[in-house]
């Protein structure tokens, strides 16, 4: 299983180059997250390196392309609106300079009282004021009916955490293999001397 040094170095470089294209760099990441509390969908967007987009357009569409809401983020990068239809809401926040973040609020998170499908709404639902429980000094009192919403949110969070974990695990595997190959290279370097200069790399 001896592979010539040149071939193995080329292979490693090709693989490393390909993989690094797949991994987004943190500074350019633009993400968003949203949850449903009752029929109110609220969320926020953020940049991977820190910071929130202000006044950026937000659009929610159903899976078949019907636009369900159009609005803007506030100064803290947050948005909120009333869902009128019980379907998947694909929320897209368009950051400046071509950034865009997407998040889908599943139909199951919305209350069953909403109609299943509808044509485009006659008027956009007005933006709902984002309530900040911590601004009010600790949201200790939980409004009735939000226990269920909490469970759904936790479930959604868990699913996202799992996806993150498996992505992280893949990266760790690649990192480990990289370390092993690197150590093999170091071993080559140290053992090359013993061969008395024969077959230098």
């Amino acid at each position: 299983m001896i592979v010539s040094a040149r071939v193995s170095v080329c292979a490693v470089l090709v693989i490393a180059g390909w993989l690094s294209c797949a991994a987004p760099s943190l500074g350019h990441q633009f993400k968003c997250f949203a949850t449903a509390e009752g029929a109110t969908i609220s969320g926020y967007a953020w940049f991977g390196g820190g910071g929130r987009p202000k006044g950026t357009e937000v659009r929610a569409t159903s899976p078949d392309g019907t636009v369900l809401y159009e609005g803007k983020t506030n100064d803290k990068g947050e948005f909120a609106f009333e869902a009128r239809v019980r379907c998947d809401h694909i929320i897209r926040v368009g950051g400046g300079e071509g950034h865009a973040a997407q998040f889908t609020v599943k139909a199951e998170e919305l209350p069953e009282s909403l109609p299943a499908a509808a044509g485009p709404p006659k008027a956009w639902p007005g933006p709902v004021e984002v309530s900040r429980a911590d601004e009010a000094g600790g949201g200790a009192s939980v409004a009735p009916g939000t226990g269920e919403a909490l469970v759904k949110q936790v479930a959604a969070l868990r699913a996202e955490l799992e996806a993150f974990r498996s992505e992280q695990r893949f990266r760790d595997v690649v990192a480990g293999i990289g370390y092993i190959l690197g150590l093999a290279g170091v071993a080559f370097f140290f053992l090359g001397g013993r061969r008395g200069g024969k077959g230098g790399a």
Partner: protein
Amino acid sequence: MHISDGVLSREVLVATGALAVGAVAWGLRGLDYDRVPRVGVLASVFFVASLIHVRMGPSSVHLILNGLLGLLLGRAVFPALAVALFLQAILLGFGGLTALGANIVMMGAPAVLSWAVCARPCRRAASQAGAFAWGAVAGGGAVLLSGLLMAALLHLSNAESYDKAAIAVLAAHLPVVVVEAGVTGAAAAFFRRVRPELLDAPLRPAAGEEA
């Protein structure tokens, strides 16, 4: 089968740690320039193999492949295992760092034993079936011995608490013994046909013979 931190007693950890250091040093002395790629590739294989999980009742077990590594690396299996186990502990959270020595000894000793017993007969086997059989013995035997070693380490640490768990882990790994016997046997038969010199890796390649 990786042992985590905080399980083994201090004496066992120190003893196995010392043994592991000696074993890795011994293994490094057998490492030759020509064998470095093989060691690297097999260390990567071992590193990734633990990610292949098989559901076994309440828990899941994973492939170990120390028999295959031993068969193909001889005593160089110790440095390979040391590196791969260390990276598994750090990057994947498999096994503890303080228990690294114990894990190296637990998986490496049966691997070297497999090599000592099975490598030469496997290479000199009269038929593919013979090579498969010796490979299967190497693979299955290594896992079995690792399990017994693990049980022994647990027993030495704290017999009352751990004996039941040790037996449960052993039982859960019996299917792994079978699977690895098959995998190692197939690999051995394949190598016998394609590259027989891989199976009997001398400690240093003789003049004129490539490793």
